[in-house]
């Protein structure tokens, strides 16, 4: 057990039982007792008024390595259709900051076929070095192909940190590599910091449906691996004059190495919603009452030159496609303007949009939690307010003039 109750100090107040998110503490004979559900999250340590709970450090860990042999920050530069994903550029931006703090080079790992131009781009965005594996079998992502090439690179070059975008592909690749290397992987990080004293990556991520944030470390294994949510980190700046070292190599891969083969690549079907890139998002929630409500949301979004977002409840109800979902299990967005219509503001939704610059909430329920984080709130029925708002947008100047005069 990593978390331990010092029985002599425990006064049996039960505060730890109430704060434990995992139901992992019972009261036995008026003393707190930690059970098997404990994940060592540490909530109880903070809650204990008499410091009767403490954390034990573990001395030995299987598969641990000499961490001093590992240096350098790597980012996986995911490409699809010979284009870099936005998240790859975000990772270069974040990786650059971390590498500068640790005073080591930043390396981008790029796999594909005939994408020399992308390797150049990664340098201009801030990579000191690009490891560019060029092979037909890497043109389209496969778990087997990508894992094997990246595993070999890690074994040979020993980076201390590796960041991967938490895309549907990154979340397939990351765990596979981490298991092969025998290291830890922290999923869907929203914040990364470095503890310079021991060169540890402090990886913060939402847990428990966004109700809790946890900072995860990987003390004895290397590389320290994280997947990072798209849209969370700032993109690197493009600088035409930047110089870097592109190491192009041809990995040894045979057709028979790829066991799960991609036989067809289908684009679209669900038109990709550009939520992460949009400056204005108008989102609908359960308060719309029915799927037709999204017509109104769409009208307003169109009027504002924005896109349509949605809460998980509406996606679960089948009112709108998952691509529109904002929140813990959807997308993380930080637009200039976020208009939440009929959204109550569950934590898991807020987790995906609270970085927005200005938040407007429209809701019938004056006690809806969304109003607590909104800059401007209108208490009212979306079916009354939205048509008025759409109409007003045609006469903005008149309204401004009239109000200023008044």
């Amino acid at each position: 057990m990593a978390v331990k109750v010092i029985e002599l100090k425990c006064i049996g107040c039960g505060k730890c039982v109430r704060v434990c998110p995992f139901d992992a503490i019972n009261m036995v004979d008026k003393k707190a007792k930690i059970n098997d559900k404990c994940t060592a999250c540490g909530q109880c340590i903070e809650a204990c008024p008499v410091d009767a709970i403490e954390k034990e450090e573990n001395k030995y860990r299987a598969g641990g390595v000499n961490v001093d042999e590992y240096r350098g920050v790597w980012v996986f530069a995911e490409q699809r259709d010979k284009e870099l994903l936005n998240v790859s550029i975000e990772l270069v931006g974040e990786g650059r900051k971390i590498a500068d703090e640790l005073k080591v080079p930043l390396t981008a790992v790029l796999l594909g076929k005939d994408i020399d131009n992308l390797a150049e781009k990664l340098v201009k965005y801030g990579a000191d070095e690009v490891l560019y594996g060029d092979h037909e079998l890497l043109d389209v992502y496969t778990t087997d192909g990508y894992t094997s090439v990246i595993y070999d690179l890690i074994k040979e070059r020993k980076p201390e940190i590796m960041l991967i975008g938490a895309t549907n592909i990154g979340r397939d690749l990351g765990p596979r590599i981490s298991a092969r290397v025998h290291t830890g992987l922290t999923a869907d990080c929203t914040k990364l910091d470095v503890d310079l004293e021991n060169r540890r990556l402090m990886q913060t991520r939402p847990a428990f449906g966004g109700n809790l944030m946890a900072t995860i470390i990987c003390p004895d294994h290397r590389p320290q691996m994280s997947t990072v949510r798209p849209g969370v980190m700032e993109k690197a700046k493009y600088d035409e004059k930047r110089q870097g070292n592109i190491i192009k190599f041809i990995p040894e891969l045979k057709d028979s190495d790829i066991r799960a083969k991609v036989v067809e690549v289908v684009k679209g079907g669900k038109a990709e919603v550009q939520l992460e890139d949009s400056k204005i998002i108008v989102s609908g929630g359960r308060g719309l009452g029915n799927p037709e409500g999204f017509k109104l949301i769409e009208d307003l979004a169109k009027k504002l030159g924005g896109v349509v977002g949605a809460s998980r409840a509406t996606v679960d109800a089948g009112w709108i496609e998952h691509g529109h979902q904002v929140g813990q299990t959807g997308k993380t967005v930080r637009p200039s303007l976020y208009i939440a219509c009929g959204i109550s503001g569950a934590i898991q939704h807020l987790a995906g949009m609270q970085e927005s610059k200005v938040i407007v909430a429209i809701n019938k329920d004056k006690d809806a939690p969304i109003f607590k984080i909104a800059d401007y709130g209108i208490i009212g029925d979306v079916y009354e307010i939205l048509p008025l708002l759409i109409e007003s947008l045609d006469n903005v100047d008149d309204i401004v003039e009239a109000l200023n005069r008044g």
Partner: protein
Amino acid sequence: MNIIVCIKQVPDTNEVRIDPVRGTLIREGVPSIINPDDRNALEEALKIKDKMENVKVIVLSMGPPQADVALRETLAMGADEAILLSDRAFAGSDTWATSTALAAGIKKIGDYSIIFCGRQAIDGDTAQVGPQIAEHLNLPQITYVEELKIEGDKVIAKRALEDGHFVVESKMPVLLTAIKELNEPRYPSIKGIYNAYSSDNVKVLSAKDVEADFDNLGLNGSPTQVNKSFTPPGRSGEGEILQGSGREAVESLVLRLKEKHLI
């Protein structure tokens, strides 16, 4: 043909609320459920069993003794066997240690064509355990499966991407992870519930029973550690409620957005 479905019992995170005064999680009354994506994995396995001859569906879970309830529910839905890996040695496992334990359980079962997991569990949202099990067992994997066909000794799956999908083909044995779009999970039948509770058919195995490598289990076997956890700092907006009639409120809003150059 054996299909092993890995499930996790999780607290229904949709039902979790924050105590507005203390800023802590309110856990009381939060039900434990079978993780939603795992239900889709089980449903697909049961559909294969419905369609093909000689298919056995074995459900495997790692968890505390209370997870028995979740396993009985899978039996009631139509699974043939249920195994619970339960041992203090598993406590505090991260995804590496969890996948190590489950892989040991799967090896113990021995004969399988498909390992089916949910994409991710709602209490952690990591999506790691499936691929890590596949790696431990040296199996090919297809994650985010939204459509599945079996042809001879092969599976053909549609795997979802943000902007479309791949059609992926693999020989069995293979590990698959299911997403919501794959199917609509069935409800347990009355007869199923009766059978699930009338006999003692949830087998409980310890770490020793499955010959797991103790060095790689539980907290000590976990490369990652929680350094600290905290409730997310709430954003506080300007928090201005715009007063007046609907039209007045909308006009005040338009004025403010204009001032901030947002429209």
